[in-house]
């Protein structure tokens, strides 16, 4: 069945603006390390290397993966809701037609 037939006006893309994913704690920690490194000249290099080159990259990747996972879950949820609305519409139509006079 063409989605445009009944549920075409519902937009899967809407859900991303519905509940935006929040920044993870890991990513925030990485950013703090990086900014600390640039603020203190003496120890800056070492911390900055830890923050930007090492831990931060890993944290960022983890954050990106979590963000992607969250977006996928939201899209799956939206598709499920649209599928549900199409199902209820179809069932209501068929119930009405069954008893048409």
């Amino acid at each position, binding site marked *: *069945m*063409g989605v*445009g*037939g*009944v549920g*075409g*006006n*519902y937009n899967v893309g*809407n*859900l991303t603006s*519905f509940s935006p994913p929040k920044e993870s704690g890991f990513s925030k920690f990485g950013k703090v390390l990086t900014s600390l490194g640039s603020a203190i000249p003496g120890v800056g290099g070492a911390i900055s290397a830890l923050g930007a080159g090492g831990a931060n990259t890993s944290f960022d990747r983890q954050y990106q993966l979590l963000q992607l996972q969250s977006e996928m879950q939201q899209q799956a949820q*939206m598709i499920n*809701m649209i599928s*549900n*609305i199409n199902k*209820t*519409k179809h*069932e*209501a*139509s068929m*119930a*009405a*037609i*069954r008893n*048409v*006079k």
Partner: protein
Amino acid sequence: MDNVNLSVSLTQEEKRFLMEAALLMRDCDRLDEAMEMFRAITPLVEDKHLPMVGVGTIHFSRGEFDEAVEVFEKAVAFRDESAIAHAHLGEALAFAKQNEEAKLALDRAIELDPKGEDGGEMAKTIQKFLSYGLI
């Protein structure tokens, strides 16, 4: 050929068949043919609100929400106790950005069909979309 009575009488099975065929046309995105079928069925059935709802869903599919609201309102005026007509009216009103009226129509659909088989469940699902701000 003067005064020839051309009235057509259909069995319930035939009415059901025609309605299902029109729905199938609509769901295959053959909207013009579906519209023609729903309009042609309207004078042939007692439950005229059902093909009217069909016509409204075609306007809705085309994104013509104001026209859809107009047709669904006629369906509701014809059969006020039809939960499916109220549910579709609520949906079209929501998409026409008339949220307060939409809520009233959806509430009425649920009130008329608490079991959810004839439009009540559909109204509940649309209410969920509305409450999430997705319409």
